[in-house]
């Protein structure tokens, strides 16, 4: 049983002073908007935000994820090329660095450009290599490139970066074995990989909340059955099961259908953890004094669940969801990498990494690893964000 705080000792009941250290004595320096009078009327979300904000890694995670979803939303605009367009003369074209400081004989200016690379064939070994020609390919921000339909709605040809001369090409992340622009492909892959996490988590959420909630709210036999089910699912090795499930998919299915089923498959893991969290919280909260108090106030079951219990759960649920997303991303990546997930022409980070399966290929074109870097960064960012959210999820706990 918790003892009331130290400040009670000499507390005058009529006092309008706040117990400044009652709950925040272990908090670091209060920031400007966390003065005691602001704290007094701060809602749960404000307190959570204040405590989250101190978590520096989590803030970095938040920015990175924000950026990745921005890329996912505006992939067509950010990608300079059509990701499926092949170019026989750019097979395994190495990456080019975009430079901004343009120094010429007649002076200098700030202007984006890349150095042009010429394709050469070694006369003896017939191996192909790319050497800088010394020429510059000038780029333009918001320049005109290929036409595309933005979100399938508007026709436009404006890209974040485009070559000044329409016939030039540039490859920030290099090109693959068919001369396709890796940068454009990674940008499009971001869209699918990042959204699979979201959709998968949505499905997990439904499963997890329903089953976990049922388990926690009713208890008894319902709980026992659902608990055994969760234990069972947890004891299964996921990848063999996924493989078997994914092998059952006809490869002839259209992309969106594959996408949906793959998400469904990967979300089959995510829900158990969420179900446990929801159940545990529900079980504990059902007997909390404040929930009993609401019942004694005469509140209906509906009101108790939605007005009194759920607000305490949402922050925890959001944190668990955030931590589940990277698992889904990894799952999709692994499946697609093995050729049992999404199939080309769909583009996801996993599909792109499939190109890097051959050791000879990657020793020749290590930039094919770049989608892997995106996977690692995205998963890391989600983990940082989720950890920070979990720590901040209950601002009333000490």
């Amino acid at each position, binding site marked *: 049983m918790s003892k009331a705080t130290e400040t009670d000792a000499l507390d005058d*009941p009529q006092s309008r002073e706040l117990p400044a250290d009652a709950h925040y004595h272990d908090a670091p320096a209060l920031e400007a908007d966390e003065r005691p009078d602001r704290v007094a*009327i701060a809602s749960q979300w404000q307190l959570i935000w204040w405590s989250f904000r101190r978590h520096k890694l989590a803030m970095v995670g938040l920015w990175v994820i924000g950026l990745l979803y921005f890329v996912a939303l505006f992939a067509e605009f950010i990608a300079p090329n059509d990701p499926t367009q092949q170019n026989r003369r750019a097979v395994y074209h190495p990456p080019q660095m975009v430079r901004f400081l343009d120094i010429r004989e007649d002076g200098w200016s700030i202007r984006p450009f890349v150095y042009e690379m010429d394709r050469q064939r070694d006369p003896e070994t017939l191996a192909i290599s790319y050497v800088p020609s010394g020429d510059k390919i000038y780029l333009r921000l918001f320049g005109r490139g290929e036409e595309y339909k933005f979100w399938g709605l508007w026709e436009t040809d404006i890209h974040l970066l485009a070559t000044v001369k329409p016939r030039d090409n540039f490859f920030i992340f290099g090109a693959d074995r068919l001369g396709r622009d890796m940068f454009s492909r990674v940008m499009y892959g971001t869209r699918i990989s990042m959204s699979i996490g979201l959709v998968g988590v949505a499905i997990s959420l439904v499963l997890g909340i329903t089953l976990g909630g049922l388990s926690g709210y009713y208890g008894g036999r319902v709980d026992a059955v659902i608990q055994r089910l969760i234990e069972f699912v947890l004891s299964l090795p996921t990848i063999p099961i996924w493989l078997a499930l994914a092998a059952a998919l006809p490869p002839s299915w259209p992309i969106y259908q594959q996408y949906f089923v793959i998400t469904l498959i990967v979300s089959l893991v995510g829900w158990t953890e969420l179900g446990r969290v929801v159940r545990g919280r529900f079980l504990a909260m059902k007997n909390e004094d404040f929930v009993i108090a609401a019942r004694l106030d*005469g509140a209906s079951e509906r009101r108790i669940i939605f007005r009194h219990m759920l607000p305490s759960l949402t922050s925890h649920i959001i944190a668990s969801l955030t931590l589940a997303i990277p698992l889904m991303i990894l799952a999709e990546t692994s499946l697609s990498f093995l050729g049992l997930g999404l199939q080309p022409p769909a583009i996801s980070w996993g599909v792109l990494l499939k190109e890097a399966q051959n050791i000879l290929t990657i020793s020749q074109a290590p930039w094919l690893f770049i989608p892997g870097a995106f996977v690692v960064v995205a998963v890391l960012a989600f983990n940082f964000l989720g950890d920070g959210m979990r720590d901040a999820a209950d601002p009333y706990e000490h």
Partner: protein
Amino acid sequence: MTDHPILTVDRLNVGFASRQGVMDVLHGVSFELHRGRTTCIVGESGSGKSVTARTILNMVPRPGIINGGRILFDPEGTGRPTVLTDLDPRGREIRAIRGGRIGMIFQEPMSSLSPVHTIGNQIVEAVRLHRDCSKAEAREIARDMLEQVEIPQPEKALDKYAFEYSGGMRQRAMIAMALSCHPDVLIADEPTTALDVTTQAEILDLMRKLQDELHMAIMFITHDMGVVAEIADQVVVMEKGHVVEQGGVEQIFTAPRHRYTRKLLGAVKRLEEPATEKRRPAKAAGPVLKVQDLALHFEKREGFLQRVTDTVRAVDGVSFTLHEGEALGIVGESGSGKTTVGRCIARVYDPQGGVMDYRGQDLMAAEGARLRESRREVRMIFQDPFASLNPRMTVKQLIAEPLIVNGLASGQALEDRVAKLLTDVGLDPGMMERYPHAFSGGQRQRIVVARAIALDPKVVIADEPTSALDVSIRTQVLDLLLKLQADLGLSFIFISHDMAVIRYFCDRVAVMFRGRIVEIGETEQIITDPQHPYTRALLSSVPIADPTLRGTRTRHRYHPETA
């Protein structure tokens, strides 16, 4: 007995480092401990008592640092003391003193013992750290220690785990461990706070006995002036890291000098007798609530088939009548079923047998709308004001909730009503937009009270409403309840483990033991002339806040055949 101090705390300063710099938690604390005497350090939570105790063993909790003063330890009286504060906190010298020369016991015996090692293992370890002996010899010593602290079947007890012991036995084991090397000083940090009064009395007896046998100095930390009166020779009163007063126990109780000491004593003294402003119920007052043969058994279900593996008779045939305007106390120790009775009446639990008649309504059978109706008139105040207020709702939302769900007020009328209720319980209505985290424990309990009276109830079940609060706040909350009782004509069922609080507040009292009421009657009569042996044991265990009365009464023990 030479009268030089065995341990001297000399102008001790301890600070906690934080980003803003070092914040002092102890400000120049000085006192002495003497062989064969008990020094009580008394103060409310946050006064720095525990930090002082740990600093003596050079175990300042992080991020604390000693930034002034010394602690001198001179067990032989040579005049060349060891300066404890100068020793390396991880070094060999201080480790030889810890447990060897200075033993320590803590508040929570359960969490202070390792959950995965047997009691024997933990005591043997303590013995072998400081005495040169074999495992078998150490086990022999441990067994003798357990016998000395009156643990039955000590040989068997050695191989048990802490969770197989009862609370009192655990604390006995802790004491056995702390004393296994016959230390010169025993530091006891609130050793009885987590225990029931009867157990507390036994532990205090035991500590006195051992002190006589081993002739050691005891430093006893407590917040309870009653306990101080029972065992202290010297008293050190601490407030917010300062020693505000120290002296002999009689001087402190008869002629306290500092305002804070007087305040602590006043809070206890006032609970020695019934409240003066208590309004008695009318003689002819009729019954509001009749409870007969109430029974609730908790069944422990296990496994997939949910078989019943164990049954606990939490409430086992309880009967009483509550009259209009009356405050009926239910007193009992942990596990007596007193809280369960209260929750049955509020229908948090559904009792399995008996009759509950509230002004002609059958509370047992009430469901749906009728249950809601009766819950409007029978309200509840909870023990822990931190757990019973949803931290995510503002004070206004919390107090308005019963009014809203019962459709009693809305809009401006609702706001006015909440403001009125806050004024009634002594809070500023201007604070209604604040969240509970902005309030102290005492203030929160006022909010809980406001919520309870929002629906103009007739009966209020108050479940230990003051036990989570510091002593000085307790009487304030009790006085508020008394005022409301008079103003609103409330009847109270007042559940408590604390006889003093019951005496202050209740007209009649029912004494509960293991799910049954063993005795019921007028409060004063039960206190002056208890009939049931359990009541006698309970009353004789309550510490009396008057050192001059020490040893003037006989202690009763009650061990029914099943114990």
